[in-house]
């Protein structure tokens, strides 16, 4: 695998878009969290002089959940980057040349999936660091309580990256794959909004609580695990909101990942290149 990763590194190390998007993403994680952090610190605290909102999103252990949730919004970037890197191969027909030169089809697709995994891991490491930084900046003591949210972030990142790989294999063209990536995410989001209301209706009117149905969709599964830390508003709404069946949602997220993995591999290994 190191041999394969070295080949990938030779392909990307001088690719400007790779460097720029990676940098944007890393800066983005810190920047978006900093915005939320400073809004709370400088604006909300100024208005709320009596300390009515005692809730502090970036204190340990809240910081794991807040940072993971906030950083989740810029996961589009590594997904887009993966689509670019993969569909470039189709554009340049280098996917053919790599095979001609002696890679097996399995090796070619495996290393792309490995990239999806590495991107998700690296993103999670950066989330871990920024969560720690903002935790300490809030003047609280380090605690690993709630660290599972970084794990959920990893799941979400991997889901985004794997669907990016799948769309690249299926559509081959940068424009089409990118377009579908955005349209799909948007459409699934709309559908999940509808399903949230449906779930609430079911609970209130029929006393059926199957959890938030929206969370069982491919991209929303990992997403549903990441929410803003519970505060007064969500506590009050608890009686009408469906229950979070965390393990069921994780099971769905993992199943979708397996589906993306299997589908991308099957498509690349069996079709004409």
């Amino acid at each position, binding site marked *: 695998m190191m041999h394969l990763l070295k080949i990938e590194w030779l*392909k990307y190390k001088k690719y400007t878009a790779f460097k720029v998007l990676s940098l944007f993403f890393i800066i983005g994680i810190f920047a978006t969290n900093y915005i939320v952090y400073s809004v709370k610190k400088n604006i909300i605290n100024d208005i709320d002089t009596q300390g009515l909102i005692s809730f502090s999103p970036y204190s340990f252990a809240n910081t794991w959940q807040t940072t993971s949730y906030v950083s989740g919004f810029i996961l589009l970037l590594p997904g887009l980057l993966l689509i670019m890197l993969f569909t470039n191969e189709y554009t340049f*027909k280098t996917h053919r*040349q790599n095979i001609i030169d*002696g890679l097996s089809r399995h090796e070619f697709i495996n290393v792309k999936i490995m990239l999806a995994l590495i991107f998700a891991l690296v993103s999670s490491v950066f989330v871990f660091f920024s969560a720690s930084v903002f935790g300490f900046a809030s003047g609280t003591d380090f605690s690993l309580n709630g660290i599972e949210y970084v794990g959920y972030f990893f799941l979400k990142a991997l889901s985004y990256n794997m669907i990016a790989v799948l769309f690249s294999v299926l559509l081959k063209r940068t424009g089409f794959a990118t377009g579908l990536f955005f349209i799909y995410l948007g459409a699934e989001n709309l559908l999940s909004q509808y399903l949230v209301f449906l779930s609430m209706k079911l609970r209130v009117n029929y006393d059926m609580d199957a959890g938030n149905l929206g969370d069982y969709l491919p991209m929303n599964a990992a997403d549903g695990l990441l929410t803003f830390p519970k505060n007064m508003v969500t506590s009050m709404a608890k009686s009408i909101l469906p229950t979070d069946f965390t393990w069921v949602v994780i099971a769905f997220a993992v199943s979708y990942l397996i589906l993306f993995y299997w589908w991308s591999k099957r498509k690349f290994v069996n079709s*004409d*290149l």
Partner: protein
Amino acid sequence: MSILSIENLSKQYGPVRALKSVSFTVPKGTVFGILGPNGSGKTTLLGIVTDILKASSGQYKWHGDLDMADQRKKIGTLLETPNFYHYLSAIDNLKIAAEIKQRGKDDIRKVLELVNLWQRKDSKFSTYSLGMKQRLAIASTLLGDPDILVFDEPTNGLDPAGIAEIRELMKKLHQQGKTIIMASHILDEVEKVCTHVAIIQKGDLKTVGTVKDIMSSPGGKTTTAVLIEIASDNNILLQQTVQQISGIVNIELSGDELHITCSESISAAQINRFCFDKEIVLTKLNVKRKSLETTFLEITGNQSDK
């Protein structure tokens, strides 16, 4: 020993049958030409044996083994178009190829010099002309000094000097004992470079054998004819004169010259002397053996596939 054996290879693209049960073997040390008009299935055939395309049925073996990626590492292949990363330089592109092949990293300078690209080694691939791209692709096939080379239309996009260089290179590689498989629609190229030829048309293998055998017996017929082109100041008179030579099969006036088809027993010197004795001075005398082109047209019929 055979380098590549192909058994009943077929390929179907929807309703189109691009290859129809093609079988042949490529002996070691030959320059094996795959000849056919555009769209005849040459690239499809080479695509299958390099694992780019999946055969609908049939199989192929390199060195008697079924396909393995490791075998391809020892084959230098140029298929259809030069495929490189546009944003990388020649040298960075070749580093990737060498890393995939796990051989030839030290050959990069040598192969770039061989195709006259060393001066431009640091330019991005996207800035190259068509001919330069083609030469880079040929350079890439030579990395690691492979014993087998597969070229699909290798002189595509090259200028006349480039074409001559590549042909010389192929002859040199052949002399070094390497096996070369080359697809081409240019008859002249196959005739000049190849030892063996397979002619395919619309996915059908029409004939296969040594170039010499095929040229002397197209489709089983044995005709060893010689084509001689002559011209003089008065071609009408010349035609009447030449008709008197025995052994002439056919005379045809073509433009401002005569094309004479005759048996091999007649030499150019004989014709020249005969005409000179009749006080006709030839302004042109050009002997052509029966070319692969005539054979090719006899086999495939005088039409393009489309």
